[in-house]
């Protein structure tokens, strides 16, 4: 599939078409979570850090982050959703860009050496403002955008092999066709996703106690049989 075909496909698709990560199709594909399946166990964070930094436990270094937010608390996995227009890349002030897209593999890559660090932070700022906020820094040791590269190089032939998807016990992560912008659920901030989940899984979970026992109109069995 050529780049032109992808552009055509981007326009034609109206919603994300998803495939199981275990049998991904050829061509451009991006990793995205089905938020409704997540149980918040954070194993994706565990394996993400392990893949990128070896035997280290520190969720701050993870490219995927689990938010426990309300209503709920619901667990919402947030990672780079590979927006088609890449506002983060555009925001990068360095030339050539520190953040760039590997057009062959369709993964976002970071040139760690040349990055200006968290003091610049334009990419993270832009992502937070426009999309899900999936970029963060971990100064001083890792002072560059920590952002999902789909574990590029982890596969047997050096291809991307996302460890979060491979090791998720609940099958949260799927491949989907590239599509960006406002209509795309995966690029939403976690608060909006939580709200969307709440609406889709009606009756809505809002308050722990909908009514106190003294607010409920109890109908006793005796009265019911009388009627």
């Amino acid at each position: 599939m050529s780049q032109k075909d992808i552009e055509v496909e981007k326009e034609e698709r109206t919603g994300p078409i998803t495939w199981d990560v275990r049998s991904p199709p050829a061509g451009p594909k991006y990793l995205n979570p089905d938020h409704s399946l997540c149980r918040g166990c954070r194993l994706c964070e565990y394996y993400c850090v392990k893949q990128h930094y070896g035997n280290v436990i520190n969720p701050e270094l993870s490219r995927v982050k689990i938010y426990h937010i309300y209503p709920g608390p619901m667990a919402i996995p947030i990672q780079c959703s590979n927006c088609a227009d890449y506002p983060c890349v555009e925001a990068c002030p360095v030339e050539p860009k520190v953040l760039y897209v590997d057009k062959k593999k369709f993964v976002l890559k970071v040139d760690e050496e040349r990055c200006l660090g968290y003091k610049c932070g334009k990419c993270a700022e832009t992502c937070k403002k426009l999309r899900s906020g999936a970029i963060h820094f971990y100064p001083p040791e890792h002072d560059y955008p920590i952002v999902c590269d789909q574990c590029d190089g982890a596969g047997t032939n050096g291809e991307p092999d996302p460890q979060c998807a491979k090791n998720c016990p609940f099958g949260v992560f799927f491949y989907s066709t590239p599509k960006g912008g406002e209509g795309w659920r995966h690029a939403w901030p976690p608060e909006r996703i939580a709200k969307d989940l709440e609406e889709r899984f009606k009756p809505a979970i809002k308050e722990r106690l909908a009514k106190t026992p003294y607010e409920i109109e109890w109908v006793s069995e005796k009265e019911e049989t009388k009627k």
Partner: protein
Amino acid sequence: MIGGYAGKHLEVNLTDGSFKNVSLDEWAAKTFIGGQGYANWLLWKMTESGINPLGPDNLLIVSTGPITGLAGGTDRGDATFKSPLTNLWGNSQFGGFWCSELKFAGYDGIILRGRAENPVYLSVKDDDAEIMDARHIWGKGVAKTDQIIKEEMRDPFVKVLCIGPAGENLCGEASIVQNAQHYAARTGGGAVMGSKKVKAIVVRGTKGMPPLADPDECFRISEIDVKTKWSERSMHTRMYRWLKFGPQASHVERADHGIGIFKNFDEGDHPDVPLLGGPRQLRMNRVRDDSCTYCPVGCIHTSLVRSGPMKGSYAAPKWDSTANIAQQTIMFDMNGMIYCNAICNDLGMDAEGVGNTVAWAMECYEKGILSKEDLDGLDLTWGDVEAEAKIIWKISNREGVGNLLADGFKHFLPKVGKGSEDFAMQSKGCGLGGYQPYAWHTFGMPYRWGVCYSVNDIGGHHNTASESGYWSNSLTYCTFATGLTDKMKLDLLNAATGYDLKYPEDWNNYGRRFMMFARTYNIREGYGGIMPPSEADVLPKKAFKKFTYGTAKGEQMTIEDWLKGRLQWYEDHGCDERGIPTKDTLRNLKLEFTISELEKANVW
């Protein structure tokens, strides 16, 4: 420094608002490991004997273990304090995300001392600790509190450990809550926190896991844990049932074994029990599941009442809470069970303990010991959802009769009297768990449940009277969702810390040490005013009844059986017939330092 430990506890004096770092004692870390064991040592060392549990001298120690944050099921915290419910050693565990976050912030635990003047919450962000004003969240339910604090901190990754209105009202059975769904419920930790006027402890840690002795080995073992839990291997275990149906699946099984606790422990079996079963809950009420850090089991089954008057409330009921709240009061109403759990959850109440209290009150009402006027006009008949919900609400908020019942069995039984203590299913003031006392222990212990209930150091709890239980709480590792065998847990500890502990001898010795140390603490505290221990290690009369119905028909534990079992337990654990550990036992278990204090108390 030993691997796995963050190396310091944060001591907060709320009276003057000062902070102090208490560095890890290497001898104690090697002797008591962490979590429950280490916290108990701190409690022993840092408090005087005979303090008031709700006074400023009491400590609330929330601590983690050396392997916390390392594998699935290790994100367990331990709350240790002197219990207002039993006046003895108070202890409870919780899961969630808080404990690993605390470790990543660079602390092994937090020690709360003193009492704040106005409601406060404590915020710990790596090395910065701060006491914040909490007057605006005082009185709010736990879910609301959690939400408000997360919004106020402007950080979605902070982890909140808080109490609900029950803790603020100093109810004897108030719980401490993490992420609004993980509860350290037993023995009234919430009341201790409430007495210190601390609404919440908020933690954010970014430092990552402290250095480990052998990281490769740690990762190898923790991956075995993960893969066992989410593969077919888990199907061979009890865990699978939890994973699929939740703890409610145990209702039918327990009834089939004749060890249910129906009608305030009257019967071991009941024909209507499938109405409370796991598959029914899955279809009727389940919304989604939740996990703790790195654990793929997801045993927290959030369930919603979808119809009827209680519509819209939700809870994540667990086994013991549903056993005591539904089985014990024979409320065969799935929605009612979830609603009553939701009240307990949101108000921060121990559903297990309050279920015991309600069942006792129902039996009192049936026998005429408590009249309708005594109960503020509530028609507290068996299985009445409305009455049960209302009385739980009253107890948690200390309204009317609830003010009396909120203190716990030990405090209200002498006031009610009239023979009601014969069917108050408690030991040392703490309500019994969800198993009939006559039944034999199901987790490989050669004692009856009744023996375990009575000798237990925190009272009638069901789970901690074994070496494995104490080990789990000290490591800290989940008691239920375990992908590792006991030996592998010890291997993981060795890999993390560089210790050289052997299975099974060290496992048994250390477990015995933790257990006897808790008992020693209780003896130092005068066993809640009843000495020797054998006079407090008792069960109510009803525990010795003969069963007449269903699978439990003909079963009975006579007083002689029970006494024999208890004596056996004392002997097995190196205690004399009065339940006091001998000096030799204490010396063998490296607990010599306790001997002088016990001699002062004149126990031998």
